[in-house]
């Protein structure tokens, strides 16, 4: 079993994500450079955060055209779990794997702070061990994290249960305080907050268990360890 961690030029949470997947949750994770191909026998894909291509043009838009994204799309169609965190979420949105766009925060500033998420969908491969409406203390760190969709799409997202996480409080002006969404099949999830920064007790003085459950959900989904 293997989790692929995709590395784009400018990714900077790749090593953090790899550390949490392997050292904390004992998963078998491997880095894949954006110009390489993804093997077909991969069990899950994670697009970590960072500033791919320095956020030039628009966060995530250049990376969305990387060669590896077509492999990610193929795997996603097969139902393989795909998680995009922060810049990874922006890339999934820009590549059309997830609906919506991510705009500049209402404050127009980069924001690094702890916030609470509320679980809205606990049927995805990354939330199946969480309770519905469970609170997750977790940090955000982004400049373009304001999720936006038009009213019609929002209605569809609600109807299809595609809103996975919302912020407990108004944080950045996101539509319906949305923090994370999934595709209609539920296997592709994108979220702006960083679960890999909240899943260890040493780093998260508040409560690391809820974020841990995001990774434990993945462990549950892909079945076996190493």
């Amino acid at each position, binding site marked *: 079993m293997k989790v692929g961690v995709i590395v784009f*030029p400018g990714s*900077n949470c790749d090593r953090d994500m790899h550390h949490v997947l392997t050292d904390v949750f004992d998963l078998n994770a491997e880095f894949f450079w954006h110009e390489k191909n993804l093997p077909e026998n991969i069990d899950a894909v994670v697009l970590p955060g960072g*500033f791919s*291509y*320095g956020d030039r043009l628009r966060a995530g838009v250049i990376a969305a055209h990387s060669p590896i994204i077509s492999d990610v799309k193929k795997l996603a169609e097969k139902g393989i779990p795909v998680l995009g965190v922060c810049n990874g979420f922006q890339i999934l949105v820009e590549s059309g794997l997830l609906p919506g766009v991510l705009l500049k925060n209402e404050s127009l500033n980069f924001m690094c702070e702890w916030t609470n998420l509320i679980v809205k969908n606990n049927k995805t491969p990354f939330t199946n061990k969480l309770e519905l409406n469970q609170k997750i203390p977790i940090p955000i760190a982004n400049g373009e994290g304001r999720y936006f969709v038009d009213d019609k799409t929002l209605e569809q997202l609600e109807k299809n249960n595609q809103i996975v996480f919302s912020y407990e409080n108004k944080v950045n002006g996101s539509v319906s305080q949305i923090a994370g969404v999934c595709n209609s099949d539920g296997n592709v999830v994108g979220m702006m907050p960083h679960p890999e920064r909240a899943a260890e007790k040493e780093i998260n003085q508040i409560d690391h268990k809820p974020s841990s459950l995001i990774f434990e959900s993945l462990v549950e989904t892909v079945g076996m360890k190493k």
Partner: protein
Amino acid sequence: MSFQEHEKLHIEKNVKRELTTTESQILAAEWSEHCSYKSSKQHLKMLPTTGPNVIVEKGYDSGVLDVGDGYVVTVHIESHNHPSAVEPFGGAATGVGGVIRDILSAGTRPIALFDGLRFGNIETDSHARWLFKNAVAGIADYGNCLGIPTIGGEVEFDECYKNYALVDVAAVGFGKKSKLIKNHANIDDLVILIGGSTGRDGVGGSQFASDALEGEDRSAVQIPDPFIEKLIIEAILECRDQNCINAMKDLGGGGLSCAISETAESLGIGIELDVKNVHLRESDLAPEEIMISESQERMLVIASPDNLSKINSICDKFRIQCSVLGKVKEDKMMHVKNGNETIALLPADFVARGPLISREKSKPKYLSNLPVAPESQNNLSLTDVLLKLLSSPNIASKHWVYRQYDHEVGIRTVIKPGYDSSVLRLDNGKSLSVKIDGNPKHCYLNPRQGAIGCFEEACRNVVCTGATPIGMVDHLQFGNPEDPEIFWTFMESIEGITDFAKSLNIPCVGGKVSFYNETNDGPIKPTPLIGVLGLIDSSPLHPNPPSENDVILLIGETKDELGGSEYYEYIHNFVGGTAPSVDVSNSKKNMDSVLSLISENLVKTAHDCSKGGLAIAISELCIFGKVGCHVNLNKVSTLSTEKILFSESHSRYVLVIEKSKLDSVKNILSEKNCSFSELGIFTSDQIIFESDSNPVLELIVDKAENNYLNSLGKIIQNG
């Protein structure tokens, strides 16, 4: 560009011919104050630089400390004052970039950034606000993009920085001892330039920084590109992992001239290079401009020819440029060619070791005429004074600043910004506590004790997390050194720092001197900045919020030292009085006692007592715990109430102790003969200080919190 008389003589004596244009430019860059340290070099030697943890290797641009288990920590500090005063966003951003490459050049990965920022009065001066906002944005833009957390620092405002800015950046790196670059070179090794292209930006930057800021020479300010820097970091570390690098140096002040001459000098080799090989951003650069351009995001690498193909393929992977400029020779000469034509040929050590200058010093006249105490009495009640101090931009929470910095990336930040000292976890299970401190208000009144105070304050901050100081870096910032009065203040500072470092056995592992920090209204106040690194064998003491009935214990003596305090300067607009002094034996004793209590697990929270004095230190704890306090000031000392509340005496710590542990704490402190007083307890929802059984100050915690947390943001909103 012009040489001084003694420099002309030095050239005549050693070169015995006319210099070429390129040679003149190279020497002007390398012999600038900024690159040559010609006023300070002979005095910096007094600082102690060795210690049990220090690893010394030739040619390192950063200090290297052994933290055990095969791991090292590297540290460096720099400033980018002149550029930031002209173009704050780019100036501050490129300051970050430069110091990161110094960490990289030792072969370590940068893991944290710290900034010391100083500006004029942001409450009244919209230009100061503009400089402040944009410098913060520049640091955020650069550090965030690289994925290096900015986890600490300080921000201070003082009229002496009007229309000017001090932007200091310290960086910390981490790596395996076995992977440190052991700078060396063999004859015929290749000299390679990796990274961004060379352009006209930053031409003459070092000379620009070695003169008073008169015009706004924007072409001397470098242009930041954090994306390229990120690619360089990853490419260089990959080259390191594949053992491709023999020696390495960052291109900073003085550009290629400095990097080539200093590398050749430190390794005892010659370097021959052709400027035609340098990859350029604009095609019409003159050869001498190529040699002194300070374009950012460039690294000089010396590698064996056998490793060139590996280096090329790594650079190809990251799509960064890589040019072979020339090669290593035996002759110890710096030989610059333009195609077949030789345009500079000078001994490398002649270039790298500029002639030094002995500067005159004399005690500044102002120091003999300082007023003793303010004439006016308080028009405000002590409660209103405290409220006003809590909203002073120098004291109020800096949340508005650090929330713009990604301080979590790297998932090492165990203690986050906003407390005494931030702490990083290391891969060997130990923790690293780092703090930088400066205090120009104290240093202006007493340059020697002020500098020692900054040093002690940084130590106190790391001690509050349970860390033992293992090394320090200093950044000495002054006005024009040609003025004997300014030079005197420089000498006082460095002598003070040296004495304290020797007394506490804390080696200086890096530093920088920045002169010519002058504004239209005169020189800045002496602004030495000290960074201290502390090591903790396991987890740090986390700041735990105080709760009802916890005891407030003050370690150390409160003295009649209101000079340079926020109380005198912000409330009374008064500059004068006696600034705090450090008693070295008490300093050591108190540090040692607090560390013992922490290691015995007897302390709930330790907080440094500094700016704003005891009143602010206790109020900050109340705000943190959302709980009031009842404090008896008579327990502190017999001084007047205002002195007890607001004096900024050093070597003091406020400890939060659970009642059940109080007796054990007192026993240990008495055994150590450490001066302490039990001031009262945390209770209710009001901050109450009483004297002679009468309350002298009463403030609802919510109100204090509102002023403390929101003031800075409100000032910024004023545009």
